[in-house]
């Protein structure tokens, strides 16, 4: 008898726990928890400064590093569980980068912006909309930035090597790869490095590829531009025009001190805050000793999109966030003035570009918005695949071994193909 009573009691307890776990939700009510997946703190900073979270809503940031595809793995796990997760556990919004945005946009895990009552504005750059639009023409998110990439050079070194630090004149001397390589030789003769990383020019080449990494039959393709990058880097390494660091390495960052010997870096507006911390610190001695010009080849790099996750119960807040960071001119103005961003809002861009009194002190007073705006119109969204992040990342790290001389070129490529086989079983390697 006692046994029976205890068993019944146990069952009741379990039943109570199970039923408590499922709160009844009203149909149209907005959720109280907003979950955002991101790979770093960059957008989180802007979000906390410029967006007012509705009262009673808790914002959870789930941040995993992008390196090695970790962010995508964690995000995928969450999205695959989205249908069964409790409302407050569901992903509401997530960030995606140019290198893999297609994977999410062309899936059922993202929600059309029309569903949340948001419409794209004319003030957005066309490619940012194109990147977030799936094959049926449904747009799934927005970008708060536009990312034309420029050649960022050290004024004092340019003066020494080229005799000038005026952006237009520097551009005239560096507007092709032939000139770039010739100047690299001059820089070397004067004891400087042209670039600090073997992969510094990688994005300029890879962004101008004429075919995607993977074709329709999932064959890996090696674009002539990638070959050109390898050939150039071989030359640069052989002649000592560049340091051997990776693009995110400390060894490269140390070149952004007063006694740095490197003339050229490549990057969009986000690069200033995100990668040039040393240079931005006035105490480290080269604040203001920088300027930008287009460089040998127009390209863009990266960019962060905000995507609406299917199943989110915070549609009003999603709409609100999208508006704040794209069409809200006040916030976009602050993004330029306080955060040195290049916003996805042409009205604000024009305002700064035409403002003779605006200058970025970090760039010695140069109007970077004007310079970037000339490049932004040329950005084309083409030849992207879902695999770009890890293919770009691992081609670089495998080729680095070749450039350092640890392995020959064929071995480096074989190791790259082996990595591709392990990571993406569906891709056919040469």
């Amino acid at each position, binding site marked *: 008898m006692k046994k029976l009573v205890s068993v019944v009691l146990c069952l009741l307890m379990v039943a109570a726990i199970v039923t408590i776990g499922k709160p009844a939700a009203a149909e149209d009510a907005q959720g109280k928890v907003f979950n955002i997946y991101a790979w770093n703190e960059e957008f989180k900073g802007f979000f906390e400064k410029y967006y007012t979270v509705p009262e009673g809503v808790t914002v959870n940031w789930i941040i995993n590093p992008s390196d090695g595809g970790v962010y995508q793995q964690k995000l995928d796990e969450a999205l695959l569980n989205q249908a069964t997760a409790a409302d407050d556990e569901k992903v509401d919004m997530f960030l995606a980068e140019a290198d893999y945005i297609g994977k999410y946009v062309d899936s059922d895990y993202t929600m059309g912006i029309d569903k949340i009552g948001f419409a794209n504005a004319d003030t957005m750059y066309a490619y940012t909309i194109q990147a977030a639009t799936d094959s049926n023409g449904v747009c799934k998110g927005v970008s708060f930035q536009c990312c034309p990439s420029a050649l960022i050079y050290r004024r004092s070194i340019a003066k020494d090597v080229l005799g000038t630090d005026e952006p237009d004149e520097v551009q005239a001397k560096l507007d092709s790869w032939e000139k770039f390589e010739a100047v690299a030789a001059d820089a070397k003769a004067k004891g400087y490095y042209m670039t600090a990383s073997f992969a510094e020019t990688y994005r300029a080449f890879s962004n101008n590829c004429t075919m995607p990494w993977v074709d329709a039959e999932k064959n890996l393709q090696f674009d002539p531009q990638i070959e050109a990058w390898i050939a150039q880097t071989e030359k640069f390494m052989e002649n000592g025009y560049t340091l051997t660091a990776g693009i995110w*390495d400390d060894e490269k960052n*140390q070149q952004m001190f007063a006694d740095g010997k490197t003339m050229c870096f490549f990057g969009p507006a986000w690069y200033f805050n995100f990668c040039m911390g040393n240079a931005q610190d006035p105490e480290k001695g080269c604040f203001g000793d920088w300027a930008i010009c287009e460089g040998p080849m127009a390209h863009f790099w990266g960019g962060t999109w905000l995507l609406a996750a299917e199943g989110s119960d915070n549609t009003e807040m999603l709409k609100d966030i999208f508006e704040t960071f794209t069409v809200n001119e006040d916030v976009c103005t602050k993004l330029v003035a306080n955060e040195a961003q290049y916003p996805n809002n042409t009205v604000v861009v024009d305002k700064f570009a035409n403002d003779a009194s605006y200058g970025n002190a970090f760039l010695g007073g140069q109007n970077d918005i004007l310079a970037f705006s000339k490049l932004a119109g040329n950005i084309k969204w083409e030849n992207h695949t879902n695999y770009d992040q890890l293919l770009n990342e691992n081609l670089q790290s495998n080729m680095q*071994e070749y450039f*350092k001389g640890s392995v020959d070129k064929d071995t480096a490529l074989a190791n790259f193909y*082996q990595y591709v086989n392990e990571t993406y079983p569906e891709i056919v390697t040469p």
Partner: protein
Amino acid sequence: MSLDNRGRRKSSISYAKWGYFFILPFFIVYILFTLVPQVLTIYNSFFTNYMDGLKHVGPEFVGLKNYVSLFTPNKQGSILILKYAGNTMLLWLLGAIPQFVIALLLAVFFTSYRLNIKGQGFFKTVIYMPNLIMASAFSMLFFTLFSKVGPVNQVLQQTGLADKAIDFFAYKGTVRGLIALMNFLMWFGNTTIVLMAGIMGIDQSLFEAATIDGANAVKVFFKVTLPLLMPIFVYCLITAMIGGIQMFDVPQVLTNRLGMPNRTSFTLVMYLNNYLSTSKNYGMSGAVSVIIFIITGILGGIVYRFLSAQYKDPVDKPRRARRAKKGEDK
């Protein structure tokens, strides 16, 4: 009283079943979290089953295809899984040999009643300390220490030992050396403590008897300590070897997933991880796991057989004989 009576009436009460109840939790956990996943891993290794982005491919039964592709030589003519198995064993041995030599020495010193080392608690804590640090944090520390702009290079350049920064991660010798060094540092303390416990379990009178018979320290070590320590030593060696075959976090973090240079410090579990992490390729990673399991089983068996055959417990016979004699006396 009444209990006693009842006991007597039933002639015997068996409490043995409670033993089974007490070990039940272990078996439940073992079955749920070890046996079932293990069987599932073997099962999965016969399927094509992975994620292409957010789309699931498979599961489709393919028989031994995954195993065949693992053992198919690549275009350069090498069977990669054998190369990585070789790397793994080499990396383990490089760290394990000094680990066991130093641990044995320290264990003997610490337990020696003649040396009677002071402050043992302090030393034991210190040598155990590296084991408390997370392996990935430890690797990150070494990565920073030995980077081209790290403190080791700065010291080398300032003292004039190197004229320019050494790229420690460009040579297989230095990378493997660093991995071995880290594994050694992390594990020799642990091994020392376990071996000390083993030595302290040996009857002190045997050491005294040996010393009175004129054996020197070296002789005592090889003729008394080592043979009697053998069961614990073999246990240590086999557990260390299993850990070694599963070596992952140190090389993974230190070489930034690449096992550089030219995948010479790429281990079996890193290979498994490459299959598993992005595409959740349960088929191929299952096959790699099964092979790791088989390798572990074979090597464990060899070590156990080889060392146990060398040293049969010499105390056992006389003890048994003594016990037998006592029985006769009764």
